[in-house]
């Protein structure tokens, strides 16, 4: 017994001596994120590289589940007065975070700690989506935009030319030929509300919600039941009925159908490039193109999705100093170019785009170029600067519910969109009532 006790004490002593936290008094920075698989590994790589680059701070990247799970974990921790320093929040949570009163705005944090980040270098679509009054309240991190993917092998089989369809008429024509040549799915799309409603409205310079999509004040009504929205939904309803459009579920569920080579034309996030590369390896070839346009509507721009990094109130000053240092590290051109290159997310600064061009990255990975070109060609207007809604996740659910009712023919396009508008008005007013 005595011997055992002595051994335990000895072991404990050794453990204390060799543990790095005891050896170096580094300040811990908690970074909660929602990145899985390859993306999760890249996040750990960023943290490890930053930790190796200096001796004062230790960034601890912690995976907290899906985007909603991560946000909920941060909320619970904040309410228990033990918030993480940095939390990754998806774009639909932006208004929730801005209104929360729980946030230490990033532009302020950086300024308070004497760190300079050139915010003017942030690419316009990202800046417009997240900034208020020209200032970024959160650190832009992983941003993507939807693009069109097409299966080259299926195109060849259908006798179609090897180029991406650029208009909805061309998408329809191609999808019909694809189905006629035996493809199980002519056209499909992941993230239905984001690719087919939010982005299509922005791309055609159509309003999505009142108060300039929620940028001039809290939005209370959606505007998606206008002529454009109805036309868009009627087209897809007809497509579903005629068999050239296959609906494959919410979130990114439809990516399974593109990935196994069933779909000819497909819309999804540019960040899908990495996974599609892996899924298609040795099976089929594919390429990307810009989002298809509909004739008769003006030029806008596609909008972004993804997430930004928010800093929560309630930490100690020296910890915030570490967060500011870490953000400076993240914002460096070198790191931005690396992150975009290995993930398929957009490089969020102009200098990173230039660096990637200079290094010949896009010659080697031409598919990654599409999203950037699409963003650069876009026109940022009040309708295409972004969408900022309270309770946005619930609004998206309301829209997708009705999209399904439209695609299945249960409701007409107009009826379904009217119902989506009515339902989301309820949700938006609830949020406005909370923060009036």
């Amino acid at each position: 017994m005595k011997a055992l006790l002595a051994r335990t004490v000895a072991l404990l002593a050794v453990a204390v001596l060799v543990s790095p936290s005891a050896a170096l008094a580094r300040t811990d920075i908690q970074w909660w994120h929602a990145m899985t698989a390859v993306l999760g590994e890249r996040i750990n790589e960023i943290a490890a590289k930053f930790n190796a680059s200096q001796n004062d701070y230790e960034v601890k990247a912690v995976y907290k589940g899906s985007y909603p799970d991560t946000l909920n974990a941060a909320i619970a921790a904040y309410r228990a007065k033990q918030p993480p320093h940095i939390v990754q929040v998806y774009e639909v949570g932006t208004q929730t975070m801005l209104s929360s009163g729980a946030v230490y705005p990033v532009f302020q944090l950086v300024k308070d700690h004497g760190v300079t980040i050139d915010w003017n270098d942030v690419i316009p679509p990202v800046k417009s989506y997240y900034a208020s009054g020209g200032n970024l309240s959160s650190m832009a991190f992983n941003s993507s935009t939807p693009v069109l993917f097409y299966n080259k092998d299926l195109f060849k089989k259908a006798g179609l030319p090897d180029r991406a369809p650029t208009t909805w008429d061309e998408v329809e024509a191609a999808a019909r030929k694809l189905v006629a040549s035996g493809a199980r799915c002519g056209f499909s799309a992941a993230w239905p509300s984001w690719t087919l409603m939010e982005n299509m409205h922005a791309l055609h310079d159509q309003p999505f919600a009142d108060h300039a999509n929620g940028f001039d004040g809290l939005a209370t009504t959606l505007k998606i039941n206008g002529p454009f929205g109805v036309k868009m939904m009627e087209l897809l309803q007809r497509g579903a009925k005629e068999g050239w459009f296959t609906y494959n579920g919410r979130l990114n569920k439809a990516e399974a159908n593109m990935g196994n080579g069933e779909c000819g034309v497909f819309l999804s996030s540019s960040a899908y490039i990495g996974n599609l590369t892996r899924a298609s390896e040795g099976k089929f070839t594919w390429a990307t193109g810009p989002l298809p346009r509909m004739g008769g509507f003006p030029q806008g721009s596609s909008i972004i999705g993804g997430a930004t990094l928010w800093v929560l109130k309630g930490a100690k000053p020296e910890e915030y100093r570490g967060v500011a240092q870490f953000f400076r590290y993240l914002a460096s051109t070198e790191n931005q170019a690396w992150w975009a290159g290995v993930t398929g997310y957009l490089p969020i600064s102009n200098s990173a785009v230039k660096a990637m061009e200079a290094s010949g990255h896009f010659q080697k990975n031409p598919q990654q170029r599409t999203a950037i070109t699409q963003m650069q060609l876009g026109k940022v207007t009040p309708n295409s600067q972004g969408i900022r809604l309270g309770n946005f996740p619930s609004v998206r659910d309301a829209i997708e519910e009705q999209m399904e009712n439209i695609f299945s023919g249960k409701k007409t396009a107009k009826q379904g969109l009217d119902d989506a508008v009515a339902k989301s008005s309820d949700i938006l007013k609830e949020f406005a009532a909370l923060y009036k």
Partner: protein
Amino acid sequence: MKRSVFPNRWLPYLLVGPQVIITLVFFFWPAFESLRLSLYRASPFGDRLIYVGLTNFERLFRDDAYLRSVITSFVFSFVVTFAGLALALLLASMANARIRGLAVYRSLLLWPYGIAPAIAGIIWLFVFHPSYGILPWLLSFVTAYQFNWFLKGWVAMALIIVAAIWKQFGYNLAFYLAGLQAIESSVLEAASVDGAGPIRRFFAITFPLLSPVTFFLFTLNMTFSFFDTFGLVHAVTQGGPGDATSILVYRAWRDGFEGLQLGYSAAQSVVLMALVIMLTAFQFRFAEKKVTY
């Protein structure tokens, strides 16, 4: 009934204490909190808490979608419970026969219970998925009908019902088997001697003698299908297409944890709680009279 006498006055309280504390902390306190929160409009980070009285409930009952969800939940729960119990009883009767390798069969039949609802959902996804599922693939040889439950509500509903029944099957079977084995064979033999056939024996003797088990399983399966099937719906249909599989517990979760409308979600939990309490009380009041212990 024999009355136990403890030498120490406090010992019995000490012994039931932990259970009482657990019930209070993990059941009554959260239930009370939901009740309280349902009267507020609350911000996610807790900086705003506005008393709104019954507004959240008004909003619920104004919403056709919510009323549809109540119906969907009842249909789902009743089908899962009745079909699930009938199937379990049928297979338990068969597994109760004296055949070789009985222990192996029984163990195998119990397996599905060890699986989490979300995993059960994923397994059935591989069977049903329109693109990579085995069932649509097999059906494509027989019929041109497209079983795309992303757009067909009834197929989606059938899918989660089958998955829920399958998931709960092992549990039901275990109880029925135990119940069947507790029935004295002499009673059944006496009935045989009196000329009752297998079907008559089942309905006149076996089924009534199993009634306590059936009653217990009925209550348990109802609560299972009302509450525990969240993971299944979340993994497979996300409540869609439209709101065809949007059962009450899934809606409450989605509005609360994804939509961050805490007061509204709490009001839904309260309604759900009231419904299940009513249902259980109803069962005890009426169904239990038919139970012979």
